[in-house]
């Protein structure tokens, strides 16, 4: 059985060439290309924005604005083989702006009011996501979310978050451990 991690890396390497091509076509005004890029990367952008803002409405705003900027700036994009990292940098800046507007007061409780976020939503997936957003600190959260959703390599995550690789790895490890313990407790409560 393949390790999911290496499997993800594999996908990441494959899709990056295609994303570059899409951005090139977007620069020519090709909206189909924008749509395809959106389909491929929207979950990554949304997940990262959610990780930073901890608010689904803000994450949606960031998702929307990110692709507006991708469309506008595609012609300025210089091919570096890091299309996803470029898109996520835009998403990061927009997310941080959101935080600043709100004065960093966002609280996990806001998520409780979001119907789509209800814990009773059948599976454990939402519980796991909620736990990631509530029990992890900012850096742990960003590392785990990026790694799970975007398929970026730790090295790339380290560049995007401007953290040393060693820190990224230790944050990742600690975050997974925290979540595992949290989920174990939750299970015992049942």
């Amino acid at each position, binding site marked *: *059985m393949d390790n999911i991690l290496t499997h993800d890396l594999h996908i990441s390497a494959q899709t990056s060439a295609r994303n570059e091509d899409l951005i090139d076509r977007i620069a020519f005004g090709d909206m189909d290309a924008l749509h395809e890029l959106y389909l491929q990367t929207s979950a990554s952008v949304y997940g990262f924005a959610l990780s930073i803002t901890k608010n689904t409405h803000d994450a949606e705003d960031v998702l929307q604005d990110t692709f507006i900027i991708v469309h506008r700036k595609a012609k300025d994009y210089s091919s570096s083989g890091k299309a996803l990292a470029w898109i996520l940098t835009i998403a990061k800046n*927009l997310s941080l702006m959101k*935080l600043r507007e709100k004065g960093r007061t966002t609280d996990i409780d806001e998520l409780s009011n979001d119907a789509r976020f209800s814990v009773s939503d059948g599976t454990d*997936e939402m519980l796991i996501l909620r736990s990631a957003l509530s029990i992890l600190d900012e850096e742990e959260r960003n590392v785990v979310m990026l790694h*799970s959703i975007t398929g970026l390599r730790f090295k790339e995550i380290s560049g995007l978050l401007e953290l040393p690789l060693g820190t990224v790895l230790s944050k990742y490890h600690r975050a997974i451990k925290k979540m595992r313990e949290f989920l174990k407790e939750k299970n015992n409560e049942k």
Partner: protein
Amino acid sequence: MKNNDIEKALSSAVTRLVPEDTFDKVTKSIASAEGRSLYMENTTRKNRRSHNWLKAAAAVIVIVTLAFIGAGYYNNNLSVDSIVDIDVNPSIEIKTNKKDVVLDVKALNEEALVILDGMDLKKLDVNVAVNAIIGSMVRNGYLIDGKNGILVSVRNEDETKAHTLRNMILSDINDTLKQGGVSASVINQTVSSDKETEELASKQGISYGKAAFILKLLDKGVELSAEELAKMSLRDIAALILKNDITIKDIIDYDEDDSVLENIKDDIDDKNEENAHKPENAITLDEAKAIALADAGVSGVTFVEAKFEHDDGKNFYELEFRKGGVKYEYEIDAISGSILEKDIEGKREESSSAPEVSEAPKEESKVPETKLITLDEAKAIALADAKFSADEVVFTKERLFDGARKIYDIEFTAGGKEWDYEINAKNGQIMSFDSELEDDDEVIFDTSKDNDNTSKADRISASEAKKIALDHAGFSESDVIFAKVELDNDDGRYVYEVEFIKGRFEYDYEIDATSGNIIEHEKDDFD
């Protein structure tokens, strides 16, 4: 619960949360913005060109101008105390009263209208207004990557007051930029107020500070007109200053160091180094451009790229330009002027009607637009290139990529690697290919440097390398988190670098890809 399951659950939860209608909102917003930018195109954006921003600049360059308005100058409007101009590409003028409360905010150009769209900044404190404006610029895609410049001009009759206001605004901009992960590099400029500067600023739709800067440069004998300089970005102006060796220490002073100008200087030095390889009998860049344009049968284009390249003993010019929705890329031999390579790509719907296409090169026109090679032909082309026969490979993907360009995407596994080809469906040309080890990081084989004696088949696979490392450490694959499995060519010898995490330890292995021997191993506590 395993790590993988946690990751899968997170990914799946987020995917489910992504709102369904967001892309519609994106397209609507773009459509309305395009309506607006068409209008802009007709007015002030005629001369907007793509900026070749400096790659090395890590900071947003902020030029702060202090100007002291002569007494009586603004007597017709006594309530105005200070005027703050912010100029990126959008230019905005803010007027405040004595209490630093905003009286009026004016867009000086069409881009600024977009920035100020829907914002009512009157009666707000000036720092709140500046904040909102910088924030809007970031949201609109300016200042995103730290390769922009901001010009801030503060005009007040009272020097102390101007300084106070300057510091307040500057620290605010700095905070806003820091939030975006960008730092500001500040350049100061102090000017006195005069009519000439006023007129230039309003005529060109630029800030007072930029106008003042330009006028001073003109005094220094810059061979461009005020109008030309007004249209240049801050970075381009800085490059011009360095190129012509103009001393500007007496015009401006630096807050910290010369890093801004140093960066630009490095950029220019790089360019000079490129040119150092240029042989004396080489044709000029303009001649190369003329050759490419003549071949393409077009004129009046904007070059996206035009530079001399020295690569592998070859001297050539690399040129890229666009015309009528078609992208042209040329490589022109710098000695003979012959065309070494050309690549012409265009939007299908536009190119079918665009007149340029009839003059497009013969290779392209030989194959009529509608006639595409078959999937089987595309597969054969890929196999021939990879040197496999059809029964040696397993095709994992075969698809006609039916976008603006017709491309066959062919993927197959063979010899422990995954091969990915993109083949132009019109002419069968291989657009791109790479091969990766299965279950692995990307490895692109550069066959020209592949000078070791072992053939690819003699090497162990990535999975085998992982297993060797795991066996040595005494773990099974499900126990650990793999951070990296990569095949490296280390001085002609192929080595797998294997990294994984177990508990609070990180394990690093170097494994000989031919023999499977462990060359080096390390265990680090990263806690």
